[in-house]
């Protein structure tokens, strides 16, 4: 039996010791002596979040298919264990073998959101790996980053040996083969990194130099050697059915955030909302086939014993085979007492009928994401949803027995006026009014509950809004107050509930999202000030971040509220996502004109993703 890295005394003194013991069903054990590469795959947040992530499950199983690689998992120790590990100098370990991460060949970290950046430093620090890539020796693992935030990896450039840009299934194994070659030749860490830089999708930050203008903007981004390409092009799978997908995902013992089987039906989104990074960088839309999905669903349910299955995509309603897939799930999978959960469905007659069949109407709520309060602003952001869509959908839902509605909005969008802010309250009120108009008194099940919540808009790289300015924390709060005040003026105010996000978190996320290499020092200073788990409200400390900016001597306004010129070189410009800068500029201009752009199926807007040679761009050509 395995010896655990932590004593019973420690495990019994921390919250949820099951986070740290491994041994889950479908987790993979191998003999150390049988493998040539040990890979520690890390999600830098608490276990329950990390175990809910599909990408980790895919890569974990993909690596472990190879007999010469043992891939194990690593999560951030929660703050209670973090403290104990620091006090007693216990090195961070992988949950399968319980061996220290520092003994591994690779530490691969998925970077899913900006607010986990200090957790990445926590992982390196607890693993006893030097924080800076330049301080690492042959004894240290190669630290590699992947995931959505690598579309601007620059704030993290100092901490990673290399970044993998694109979909993990494509070239990770080629990287492993290169590593084996290098190891055999004993060529040295630097030589390996130089060779890796030649692989598609690989970015080695130490092989580039960034120069700045006096005003702080970038003047040049220069490769330092021949192996480093000027542009790093993202890698993607063109045929999703052929991409690796596991039959047997790991099944956690404790309840995790997404405690269900996840079936990814498609990648990318046809919609082209101008604020949405995922909708731009994951282009083109690629669907999985119905036969593939049916087979995978059945296999995975059998191998895991999960009692719930969920579909994953950016916009399930746009999946062309949705009706047939749902029919299969309800009639064949539902028979086996499996719960079905369908996120991100457009509310219409079809989806309401489906939802009525799979969930308890009384308990569930309907979700709409209008994102903005007026049609004008929804046109600016290219959100196709109209007020009529929402009210018609809501009326149908109320007739079907629902009486809880959630509405998601953003505040601080480009060109937003007071009318747009008040529009959030007005639209919420309209939804409530529709309830009282539609449902006769005797049939009402109490009052309708309309919950509106707003986050603050954060411009992200590779979106048409990458040129947009952010506001000050106080201004965000002021806008939320305008909405809140307007809510209280509405006729149906007693049915309305309004919530808003933290403006401080917004500022930090904004800096990290569009930051350059100089921001790395701020992240490190914040971490040294004690910041970890910034994504968790209770452990987010704005003052410590502000101290970090002051200590480093960087003004965060440079990254948030500054006006960016159209020809400014952005830190992320060396990445080629397929979507051209010209297209983004065009969309930014159309946004300012309030002109909508049709979705990919209604008409090609020429974004550039067609060069990948697959997906929606070629649907009509056959």
């Amino acid at each position, binding site marked *: *039996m*395995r010896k*655990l890295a932590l004593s*019973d*005394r420690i*495990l*019994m003194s921390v919250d949820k*010791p*099951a986070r740290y*013991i*491994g*041994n*889950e*069903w479908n987790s993979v054990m191998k003999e150390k002596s049988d493998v040539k590469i040990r890979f520690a795959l890390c999600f830098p947040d608490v276990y329950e979040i990390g175990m809910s992530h599909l990408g980790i499950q895919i890569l974990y199983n993909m690596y472990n298919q190879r007999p010469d690689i043992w891939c194990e998992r690593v999560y951030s120790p929660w703050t209670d264990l973090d403290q104990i590990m620091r006090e007693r100098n216990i090195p961070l370990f992988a949950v399968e073998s319980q061996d220290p991460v520092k003994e591994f060949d690779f530490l691969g970290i998925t970077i899913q959101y900006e607010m986990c950046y200090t957790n990445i430093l926590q992982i390196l620090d607890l693993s006893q790996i030097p924080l800076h890539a330049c301080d690492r020796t042959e004894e240290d693992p190669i630290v590699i980053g992947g995931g959505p935030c690598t579309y601007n990896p620059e704030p993290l450039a100092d901490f990673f040996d290399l970044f993998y840009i694109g979909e993990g299934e494509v070239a990770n194994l080629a990287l492993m083969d290169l590593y084996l070659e290098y190891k055999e030749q004993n060529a040295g860490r630097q030589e390996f990194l130089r060779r890796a830089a030649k692989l598609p999708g690989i970015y080695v930050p130490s092989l580039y130099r960034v120069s700045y203008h006096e005003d702080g903007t970038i003047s040049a981004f220069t490769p330092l050697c021949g192996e480093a390409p000027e542009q790093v092009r993202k890698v993607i799978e063109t045929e999703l059915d052929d991409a690796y997908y596991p039959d047997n995902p790991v*099944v956690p*013992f*404790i*309840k995790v955030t997404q405690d269900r089987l996840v079936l990814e039906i498609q990648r990318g989104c046809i919609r082209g909302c101008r604020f949405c990074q995922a909708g731009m960088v994951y282009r083109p839309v690629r669907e999985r086939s119905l036969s593939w999905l049916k087979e995978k669903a059945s296999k995975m*349910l*059998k*191998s*895991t*014993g*999960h*009692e719930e299955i969920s579909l994953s995509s950016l916009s399930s309603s746009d999946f062309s085979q949705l009706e047939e897939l749902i029919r299969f799930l309800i009639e064949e999978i539902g028979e086996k*007492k499996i*719960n079905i959960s369908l996120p991100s469905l457009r509310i219409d007659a079809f989806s309401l009928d489906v939802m009525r069949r*799979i*969930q*308890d109407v009384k308990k569930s709520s309907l979700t709409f994401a209008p994102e903005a309060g007026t049609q004008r602003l929804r046109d600016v952001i290219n959100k196709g949803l109209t007020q009529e869509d929402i009210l018609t959908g809501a009326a149908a839902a109320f007739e079907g027995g629902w009486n809880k509605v959630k509405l998601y909005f953003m505040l601080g969008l480009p060109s937003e006026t007071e009318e747009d802010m008040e529009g959030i309250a007005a639209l919420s009120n309209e939804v409530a009014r529709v309830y009282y108009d539609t449902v006769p008194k005797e049939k009402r099940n109490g009052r309708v509950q309309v919950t509106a919540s707003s986050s603050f808009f954060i411009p992200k790289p590779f979106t048409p809004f990458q040129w947009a300015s952010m506001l000050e924390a106080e201004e965000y709060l002021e806008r939320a107050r305008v909405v809140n005040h307007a809510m209280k003026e509405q006729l149906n105010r007693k049915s309305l509930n309004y919530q808003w996000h933290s403006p401080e978190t917004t500022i930090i996320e904004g800096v990290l999202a569009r930051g350059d290499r100089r921001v790395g020092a701020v992240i490190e200073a914040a971490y040294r000030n004690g910041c970890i788990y910034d994504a968790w409200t209770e452990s987010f400390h704005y003052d410590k971040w502000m101290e970090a900016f002051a200590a480093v001597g960087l003004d965060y306004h440079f990254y948030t509220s500054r006006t960016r010129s159209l020809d400014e070189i952005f830190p992320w410009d060396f990445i080629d996502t397929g979507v051209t800068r010209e297209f983004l500029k065009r969309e930014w201009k159309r946004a300012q004109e309030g002109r909508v752009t049709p979705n990919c199926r209604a008409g090609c807007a020429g974004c550039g993703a067609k060069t990948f040679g697959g997906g929606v761009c070629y649907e009509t050509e056959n």
Partner: protein
Amino acid sequence: MKLRIKFAKSGCMKLIGHLDIMRYFQKTIRRAGIDIAYSEGFSPHQIMSFAAPLGVGLESQGEYLDIQVHSASSSRQMAAELNRVMTEGIEVRSVRRLPEDGRNAMSIVAAADYFLRFENGCPPEFDAFMAQENISVLKKTKKNKILLDIRPLIYDFRREETGIFLKLAAGSVNNLKPELVMEAFFSWLGEAWDPFCCQICRLELYAWAGGGKPEGDAAPEQKPVSADSFISLEELGESIDDAE
């Protein structure tokens, strides 16, 4: 048909709490393809109940859950199917059919055997401690603390070289945790009780022999208790032969 599953829990699985063990079994029963019965409604759940929750950190050789099934193969085959889909540290020991009128394990648990394995040998004073007529401890309830004599709830004990065997009252009427006995013992010794000085293992769970509690109004602890006062939960079910 009602089935009773007996299982052992050891190694790192001792850190998985009761609710998670329930969830774990729901999934293993699906993986094993056991033809379990479900409740009605929008989120049907498996008809399943556990005999007695085991504290986090404790190992066990004798845990039980009862399930309702539509059909069953042989005891041997079902145990093998379940063990094929278990993680290391959980082992199904037996699967037995309960009589149709058999009561739920949870409602009949009356006693439990424990072995407390001491890292550095068992303190020899335990015999003297047990020789007392009364052992009063402060027991915390939801609202307040009450003084309780636990001596009558210790049905049997035996000091061995490596540790202590205890047979204690268990279930919904009188439930005595071995940790409470140790707390009392160490406090009697004038020492602080370190929960990590021994590994506690539950060995078996019992019901009163003869189908229920002893007759009369008297609390069970006032009746003389002997070795044949109890029957293990496993013995209340019968094995399903391969031939059936």
